[in-house]
């Protein structure tokens, strides 16, 4: 209980000044029949014991360091220590949403820098202060399109992460927006461009770049088809590729969303990360979430403040563009700092290292007997291979050899049981890649029987 600040003497004094005979008196507004006297939880512990307990839980987890090839929307990228050091500063960490700009310029300015960073990476003029995560940002992107077009149909590419597709459906279940899938070309792994009939009444076409299978989509024809039908193209973008691939804004997307995770935010069993949303100017008034704008203070100094709040729940209430209030500011800051440390050159080089290593591994793996590439479209740092065995079994074997080889896709769809999704980043050294290939060759030579765990 070291965070409590009063002594019993303090309490007695305060109660006296309040005019209450006891603490219980303060709780008399609670109907007697509701009142409880204690919580059925263990007593508090000294910090040393808490540290020991939580650390032992962390140690109970097993992690794989540079021998992990798991991606599928969450990537192992080295986060520089400066990111942790700066985001850990309590002035950032222990502040609330910057409601009082005079004492919140630190937060406001880094959000403004985040908005600029996202705008640059998406090549769309406006970005908001962050969303919960990439998946919920995609759902909010669909809602934005529905509001803007006054339509309700949502078309989601089968190349969008299955969990993000599920989130879109969950969100859509409220207002009852119909959601339909767009198929992939089985050989290239790219989204097939829907025809006009398919697009009729659609508010939005949602695609992911690179898509769930790592394949780089051809966005231009999708944008053209969507626009011809009066729908918006919403792209879920992996920022890891943003230094090299054409950004959504360059190829006609109306809205870009995604998750900043690869930058500044380690996997951490899936969160916290930060979603982002950027759009063309015409949709600004429909943007959900906070926006920071530049202005001048009473002395004419440049400064920053929350702006366009008429879109938001605390002003517009029932008519807000979204219910979002707290977002993921500190995770967005981590991404902003990491990307500033990389700069355009570092971002490009990081991408180049990821690509080169991924292609090297892809080549070596698909040379193994029975292993083939799942698709022949271009890919960035992630690809799916088709195995001659259940991918989960294969993974199990490789884990016994010290390599966590990728995500067995059967967990998402039984039809994908032979598929393994492999992600390669700059943390996987050439030695790790070769170890992977060796282990894979070994495992394929001696296949396993049963899956112990999903």
């Amino acid at each position: 209980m070291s965070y409590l600040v009063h002594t019993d003497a303090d309490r007695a004094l305060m109660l006296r000044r309040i005019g209450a005979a006891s603490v219980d008196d303060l709780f008399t507004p609670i109907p007697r029949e509701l009142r409880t006297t204690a919580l059925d939880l263990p007593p508090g512990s000294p910090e040393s014991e808490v540290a020991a307990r939580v650390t032992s839980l962390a140690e109970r987890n097993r992690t794989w360091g540079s021998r992990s090839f798991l991606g599928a929307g969450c990537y192992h990228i080295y986060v520089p220590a400066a990111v942790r050091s700066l985001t850990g500063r309590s002035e950032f960490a222990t502040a609330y949403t910057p409601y009082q700009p005079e004492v919140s310029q630190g937060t406001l300015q880094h959000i403004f820098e985040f908005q600029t960073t996202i705008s640059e990476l998406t090549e769309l003029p406006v970005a908001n202060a962050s969303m919960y995560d990439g998946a919920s940002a995609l759902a909010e992107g669909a809602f934005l399109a529905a509001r803007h077009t006054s339509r309700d149909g949502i078309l989601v590419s089968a190349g969008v992460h299955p969990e993000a597709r599920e989130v879109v459906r969950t969100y859509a279940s409220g207002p009852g927006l119909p959601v339909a899938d767009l198929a992939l070309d089985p050989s290239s792994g790219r989204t097939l461009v829907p025809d006009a009939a398919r697009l009729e009444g659609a508010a939005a076409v949602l695609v992911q770049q690179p898509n769930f299978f790592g394949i780089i989509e051809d966005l231009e024809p999708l944008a053209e088809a969507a626009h011809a039908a009066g729908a918006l193209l919403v792209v879920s973008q992996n920022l890891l590729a943003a230094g090299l691939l054409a950004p959504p804004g360059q190829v006609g997307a109306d809205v870009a969303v995604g998750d900043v995770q690869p930058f500044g935010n380690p996997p951490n069993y899936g969160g916290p990360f930060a979603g982002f949303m950027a759009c063309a100017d015409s949709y600004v008034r429909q943007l959900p979430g906070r926006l920071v704008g530049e202005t001048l203070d009473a002395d004419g100094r440049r400064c920053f403040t929350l702006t366009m709040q008429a879109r938001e729940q605390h002003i517009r209430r029932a008519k807000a563009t979204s219910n979002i209030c707290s977002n993921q500011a500190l995770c967005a800051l981590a991404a902003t700092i990491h990307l500033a440390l990389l700069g355009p050159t570092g971002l490009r080089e990081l991408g180049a290292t990821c690509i080169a290593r991924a292609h090297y591994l892809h080549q070596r793996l698909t040379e193994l007997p029975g292993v083939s590439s799942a698709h022949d479209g271009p890919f960035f740092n992630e690809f799916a291979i088709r195995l001659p065995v259940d991918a989960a079994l294969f993974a199990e074997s490789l884990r016994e050899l010290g390599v966590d080889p990728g995500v067995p896709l059967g967990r998402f769809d039984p039809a994908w049981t032979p598929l393994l999704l492999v992600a390669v980043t700059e943390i996987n050294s050439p030695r790790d890649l070769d170890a992977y290939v060796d282990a894979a060759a070994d495992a394929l030579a001696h296949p396993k029987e049963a899956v112990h765990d999903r």
Partner: protein
Amino acid sequence: MTDDCRGSRLEPLTFDRSRPGHRGATVPTAGVPAAPIAHLLAGASLRTRPPALPELSEPEIVRHYTRLSHLNHSVDLGMYPLGSCTMKYNPKINDEVAQARGFTDLHPYQTEDDAQGTLELMWELEQALLVVTGMCRATLQPAAGAHGELVGILMIRAFHRDNGGASRDTVIVPDSAHGTNLATATMAGYKVVELKSSDRGLIDLDTLRSNLSEKTAALMLTNPNTLGLFEEDILEITRLTHEAGALVYYDGANLNAIMGKARPGDMGMDVVHMNLHKTFSTPHGGGGPGAGPLAVCARLEPYLPAPLVSRRDPNEAPMRRADCREGCASGPDDDGACCPRFGLDYDRPASIGRVRGFYGNVGVLERAYAYILSMGGDGLTQASEDAVMNANYLRTRLSGTYDIPHDRLCMHEFVASASRQKRDTGVAARDVAKRILDHGVHAPTIYFPLIVPEALMIEPTETESLAGLDAFVDILVAIDREAHESPEVVTGAPHTTPIRRPDETRAARDPMLRWRSDTG
């Protein structure tokens, strides 16, 4: 003499400082035989212009953000009595243990075997939250309070769909409600009806009755409400609502008032979200990440987003502890004598579906878990007692100086008003707030709840010391005096902060939402 404490403290943008060719982090080179990038990416559209990220060295970036940090107020710098936000102390140990490699490196698609530590933590956290709320089962997915609200209302919609209530199209909220409640209802496809509060600042049973109908899907409320007042008729409120076939949603933003003192489950709540970034001490980060776990009663349990964290005994039979008014499970089992195994339960056919990728803001959950271990049941109860005592102490001491529309026992916060000052001196709530900033203290929440004019919503939290409370009273009393003696000092405030009041109109009129090279 042109010296100025402000100017020298402001900081250009990274983008302003950027100079071509500079860089911070270096990245390993590929080190494998590889074709040129253009060849490897053949068939893909490439970026034609490099993104204008800042080009700066690491020392410059560190200096930039360190300097920026000095422009913020924060809990670690001073009192932060922002009503409804529960800006309590964020223990350092929580941040530290959450940095363990075993947590941070864990990939969400590793096997359950690999993730036993984190899964156990999530399971135990869920149990603790159920104990505090008196509910039956919880999801840890929601990233914030409002996210939890959306999940809860979507579950209520699913429940009605399955129980003949598909035509229920309205959610009722008190007029004192937080904006997220209304926005959530709309986002989930409902119409919103606002309930006028009674003179006592509470829900009026007659008004409620007249609004409840076969169209009502749910009543959303927070208790204590945003005035810091406990809804004394809460049992009647939930009874009436249930009688009308509607469910009751409990916005747990104010849970810090009642831990160990009363449970939403006992009040008859069907759905309850918690803000771990308020009640459970996780840092708010200048606007997140938070976490908004959502706990439900038994009849809503099937609708929870999948996956849930489950605990199995070594023979793989699912086990569960619960502590819910509906007796939905067999009660606490003994604690893991036999190495329970934790897993993710996807087999939930009635689930509304997931509301985010992966499983939740796990890093936030870790911190809340550490907090609960530190405090224990007694500590949490004492925290609520102290929070309520601190609020009442401030209320009592300020009531001579500021109007307090509902000047009776409050819970963890109360709403004062500057209407008297406004009327007598022209000094508004906003001015009082700005003037407070000059004293190294954050302002209360202002102009909320909407039903109190010139509202100053004050939540000291339990981690503010008596000396801190007394200093705050002195500040507010001094400002009242200034308002009468030299109001321009107050209306011109703040005077010592890094900037003075920003021109909000200018910001909104022609929004500049990102850096442009020509505006540097």
